[in-house]
């Protein structure tokens, strides 16, 4: 039963996983286009020039939104130059620890000084570079990237803060759910109750069918944590707070590398046997298959990383572009249309938020399942 079901489920999961990628492939190209345009315009206007017209302002805003930021800006008033939000701590390691508030940068307009070193936030990539008192930035002629020294940046950025908030929220929610069982005689109560079906769903429809009854328990903590973590951050990204954690390449990379490490460290002999010496095929084929299989080991988590990143990133770009259209059209019909469109798209994004969290968890479970899968002959022997 399980053996016959597995390929079918895998194909279904793979199809579902590919679906958003395909539908977003065009928009993703668009987003890249938008970004390059921003960069071009910015370079043509000079590195510190602010965009002036509405269109390029929106582009710059979107371009900045998808990147990490050292302060938490909710909104800003361009006319008065006022920012509404709060600064975040900057922690740098540059031959010694430098800790100061990001308000020192005045939103990238000024050079910050700490223990005799000068730092500046680059306007393009939002990263901190070491500079001199005047804030000169030398740029590489070919790539346009600054060549200044980059200190090791351990700042609590907007993304780090949102990760912390998500972690705290999850901790509070699920510990209260756990406590409610003891208090209420084995039946959940309170806010966490809403998440109990999701926990059961992860156990019964993700972990057990993909990993198997025998091994699934040791992966449950990871699968549940990653599912809710990705889900919460995806949902956070849809709030007007302007958080983009799961659409950040570094975050998805960190998640994917954990899946990769867990898969390969918990893998049994059978898994490695299938990679380096595929059973059941002629010997010359095994030699050809080994590098392909080995490549697959790395491609699997890589696809995890790119899928989540691209989906959320593209979703944010598209959604914000359509919201931005409202201000470009400035006519009742165009703005209404783009409002309706952004509304529909927001609903779609909620679906994507759940779907991507599910797919990440599902595929992680699938990889864990392949890592601990027993030999099929033994399995038949058990029956």
């Amino acid at each position, binding site marked *: 039963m399980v053996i016959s079901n597995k390929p079918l489920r895998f194909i279904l999961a793979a199809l579902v996983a590919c679906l958003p990628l395909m539908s977003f492939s065009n928009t993703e190209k668009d987003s*890249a286009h938008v970004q390059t345009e921003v960069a071009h315009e910015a370079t043509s206007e000079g590195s510190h020039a602010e965009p002036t017209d509405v269109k390029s302002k929106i582009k710059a805003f979107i371009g900045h939104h998808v*990147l*990490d930021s050292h302060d938490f800006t909710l909104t800003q008033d361009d006319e008065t130059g006022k920012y509404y939000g709060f600064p975040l701590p900057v*922690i740098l390691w540059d031959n010694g620890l430098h800790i100061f508030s990001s308000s020192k940068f005045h939103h990238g307009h000024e050079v910050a000084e700490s223990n005799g070193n000068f730092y500046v936030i680059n306007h393009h*990539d939002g*990263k901190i570079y070491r500079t001199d008192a005047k804030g000169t930035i030398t740029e590489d002629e070919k790539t346009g*990237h600054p060549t200044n020294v980059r200190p*090791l*940046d*351990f*700042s*609590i*950025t907007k*993304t*780090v803060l949102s*990760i*912390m908030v998500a*972690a705290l929220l*999850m*901790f509070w929610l*699920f*510990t209260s*759910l*756990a*406590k409610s*069982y*003891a208090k209420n005689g*084995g*039946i*959940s109560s309170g806010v966490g109750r809403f998440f*109990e079906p999701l*926990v*059961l769903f992860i*156990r019964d429809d993700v972990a057990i069918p993909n990993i198997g009854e025998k091994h699934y328990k040791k992966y*449950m*903590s*990871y699968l*549940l*944590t990653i599912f809710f*973590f990705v889900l919460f951050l995806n949902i956070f990204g849809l709030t007007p707070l302007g958080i983009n954690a799961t659409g*950040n*390449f*570094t*975050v998805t*990379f*960190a*998640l994917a590398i*954990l899946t990769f490490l867990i898969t390969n460290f918990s893998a049994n002999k059978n898994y490695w046997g299938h990679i380096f010496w595929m059973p059941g095929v002629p010997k010359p084929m095994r030699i050809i298959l080994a590098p392909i299989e080995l490549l697959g080991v790395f491609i699997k988590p890589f696809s995890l990383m790119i899928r989540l990143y691209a989906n959320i990133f593209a979703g944010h770009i598209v959604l914000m572009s359509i919201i931005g259209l409202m201000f470009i059209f400035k006519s009742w019909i165009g703005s209404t249309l783009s409002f309706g469109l952004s509304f529909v798209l927001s609903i779609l994004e909620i679906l994507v938020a759940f779907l991507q969290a599910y797919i990440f968890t599902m595929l992680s479970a699938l990889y864990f399942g392949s890592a601990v899968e027993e030999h099929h002959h033994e399995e038949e022997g058990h029956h």
Partner: protein
Amino acid sequence: MEKLINQFEFGLFFWQVLIFVGLIFLLKKFAWKPILDAVNDREQGIKDALLSAENARKEMENLQADNQRILNEARAERDAMLKEAREMKEKMITDSKNEAQAQGQKMIEQAKAAIESEKNAAMAELKSQVSTLSLSIAEKLLKEELSNKESQTKLVEKMLGDVKLN
């Protein structure tokens, strides 16, 4: 691809891994384990309850079947006993009838025999009585008759005449 690599931020990676791994372990200890245990316990409880209900139902059925069987047995035994009693009664009646008949027959036989012997005895008695009586009568008659001659002859004649009649 180069854009992606440029976006990589070691500090963020550090925080993400630190917070996430910490979160996994904290949640494992304080949330996932108690939640999954509670859910498993509850499911096990439901399973057990269903199983015991099923068992109770089966036991009930068995009990009912047992009862039915015992009832049937009792009924069959009662029927058998009644039948036996009836047979015994009939047998007793026929037996006693036969015995009574035999007894009666025997009594009748005895009575008949007694009657016969009594009759014979009576007859014998009667005969001897008659003979003595007749002898005495004859004697008396003879004494009287023989007292005169005429009457003697007359008697002899008469007697002879009687004998002839007999």
